[in-house]
């Protein structure tokens, strides 16, 4: 339709009076923080909007439920706010509906005026080094889903008994979470909402030493102060950090000068390196921060072929990258082997592409500008009408829960602008919205889980938890979840 933005605005500008008869139907795919903040802001800004939040799980809240560690309950309080959004009369949570298998993006675009994809990043970056397929090497994401009771990892079974040493590649907050869950006495975890099957496995775990390995130095460590302070403060845990690793280059000093987060993290690491006891007693649990080591290959074991026995690291030094000015790790040709039968890669998540949605495989995101989905990532800025992204699918898998607040604001601003201009005509025409989706899903025999059905799961988990002195005891299989909900 060859019509200018200004003319479109003039002709089809929405007014409050026309809204009731022709609601704006919005579908948000993904019910984590990105999805819920988007829904909340949409409902607030557009009083005639009806918003559906779809999720492939029967349970909402995304990584707040399946990512935040069990011993961090305060970080989960935000679900109270999300719950209020779901209970808004113009909002519906629709669980157990998968984009791609239950319904296609094309179908959603036919039924809704606006579709916002906020389904995050459910896969992992790969190192691409030899031996990566050996048994005993896992992604941190799987480990976290496992201890948080994600139904896709219910029968995932890490071997915590055949070794006393775990190597974690990466030093971000997820890596610290994994280290902490492996090293905290199981008795302390017993009163959290950790999944029961994971607690049972951790009670029998023989892991006593954990190495957190980074390619660069303490100045570049990706974790943040709160998490670091917490892990350094664990009772009776021997912390090992080499003082030699703390030496700073002039470029390091420059980096620290401009970055409060890294400054405070460096100070904590520095203090821990100087103040810890130099010897640890037999059987004491140990946490080692290893810097300047880049994984070169995984080593196979002689006795159990196909199972990892260790990691070969190449020692690195920092060099300033010509383009960015940032310091990158460069190999020195010197190698060092670490023995371990349990390796957890915590090097970043990756989004999964979906049919009908352009994907930038390089960056692992959907190409977009301000949340408006582009036809491709080639540089041609043509948009796909009515389709938007928010959260990790838009920005890549970085940031905290609150980052999605600002991300959602930006996407909603783009949507709002488009509603007055390029979408003005299309949104003046009625669409079936929720009714259409539910009818379609019923014809496909998809059992949808509305919010009040999730609440049955919620109540049952809390009831089971009360029997074990836990805030909740999660239902962790698809069967149990659907049985209680439906």
């Amino acid at each position, binding site marked *: 339709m060859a019509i200018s933005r200004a003319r479109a605005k003039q002709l089809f500008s929405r007014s409050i009076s026309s809204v009731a008869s022709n609601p704006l139907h919005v579908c948000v795919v993904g019910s984590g923080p990105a999805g819920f903040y988007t829904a909340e802001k949409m409902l607030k800004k557009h009083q005639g909007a009806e918003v559906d939040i779809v999720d492939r799980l029967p349970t909402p809240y995304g990584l707040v439920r399946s990512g935040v560690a069990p011993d961090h309950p305060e*970080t989960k*309080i*935000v679900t109270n706010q999300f719950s209020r959004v779901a209970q808004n009369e113009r909002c519906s949570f629709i669980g157990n509906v998968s984009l791609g298998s239950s319904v296609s993006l094309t179908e959603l675009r036919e039924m809704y005026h606006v579709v916002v994809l906020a389904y995050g990043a459910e896969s992992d970056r790969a190192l691409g080094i030899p031996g990566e397929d050996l048994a005993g090497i896992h992604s941190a994401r799987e480990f976290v889903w496992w201890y948080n009771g994600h139904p896709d990892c219910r029968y995932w079974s890490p071997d915590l008994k055949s070794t006393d040493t775990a190597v974690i590649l990466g030093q971000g907050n997820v890596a610290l979470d994994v280290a902490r869950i492996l090293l905290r006495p199981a008795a302390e975890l017993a009163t959290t909402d950790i999944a029961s099957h994971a607690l049972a496995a951790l009670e029998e775990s023989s892991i006593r030493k954990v190495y957190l390995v980074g390619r660069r130095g303490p100045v570049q460590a990706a974790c*943040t*102060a709160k998490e670091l302070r917490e892990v350094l403060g664990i009772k009776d845990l021997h912390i090992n950090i080499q003082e030699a690793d703390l030496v700073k280059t002039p470029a390091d000093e420059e980096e620290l000068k401009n970055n*409060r987060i890294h400054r405070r993290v460096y100070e904590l690491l520095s203090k821990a390196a100087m103040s810890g006891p130099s010897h640890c007693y037999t059987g004491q649990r140990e946490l080692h921060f290893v810097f300047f080591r880049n994984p070169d290959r995984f080593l196979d074991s002689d006795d159990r072929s196909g199972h990892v026995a260790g990691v070969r690291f190449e020692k690195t030094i920092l060099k300033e990258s010509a383009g960015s000015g940032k310091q990158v790790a460069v190999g020195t040709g010197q190698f060092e082997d670490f023995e371990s039968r349990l390796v957890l890669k915590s090097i970043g998540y990756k989004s999964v592409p979906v049919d009908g949605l352009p994907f930038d495989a390089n960056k692992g995101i959907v190409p977009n500008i301000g949340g408006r989905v582009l036809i491709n990532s080639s540089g041609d800025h043509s948009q796909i009408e009515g389709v938007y992204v928010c959260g990790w699918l838009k920005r890549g898998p970085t940031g*905290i829960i*609150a980052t999605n*607040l600002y991300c959602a604001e930006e996407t909603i601003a783009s949507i709002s602008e488009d509603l007055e201009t390029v979408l003005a005509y299309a949104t003046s025409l009625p669409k079936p919205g929720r009714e259409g989706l539910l009818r379609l899903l019923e014809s496909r025999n998809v059992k949808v889980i509305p919010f009040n059905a999730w609440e049955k799961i919620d109540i049952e988990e809390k009831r089971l938890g009360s029997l074990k002195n836990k805030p909740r005891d999660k239902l962790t299989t698809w069967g149990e979840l659907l049985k209680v909900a439906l």
Partner: protein
Amino acid sequence: MSMLEAAHEIDIDLEGACEGSLACSTCHVIVMDMEYYNKLEDPTDEENDMLDLAFGLTDTSRLGCQVIATPELDGLRLALPAATRNFAVDGYKPKPH
């Protein structure tokens, strides 16, 4: 009463994702007058850890849930980072941290 609670009492849009339990930075506020900033007790390590992650952090930033109303603070002026992003509050321009 904290500034976060006060804001909610009078329907000001100050986010409080963790409801005051020092597990987020969404109630970040900017104290507009240095004189008042200095009257406040220093932030604890825990508050500073959360401030590390606040968007638009300034020299006089605090978490709204940690600033408790006292008679001494009468006249305290707080800016919300959302407002300062547009520099729309009395022409006040916060110093970047």
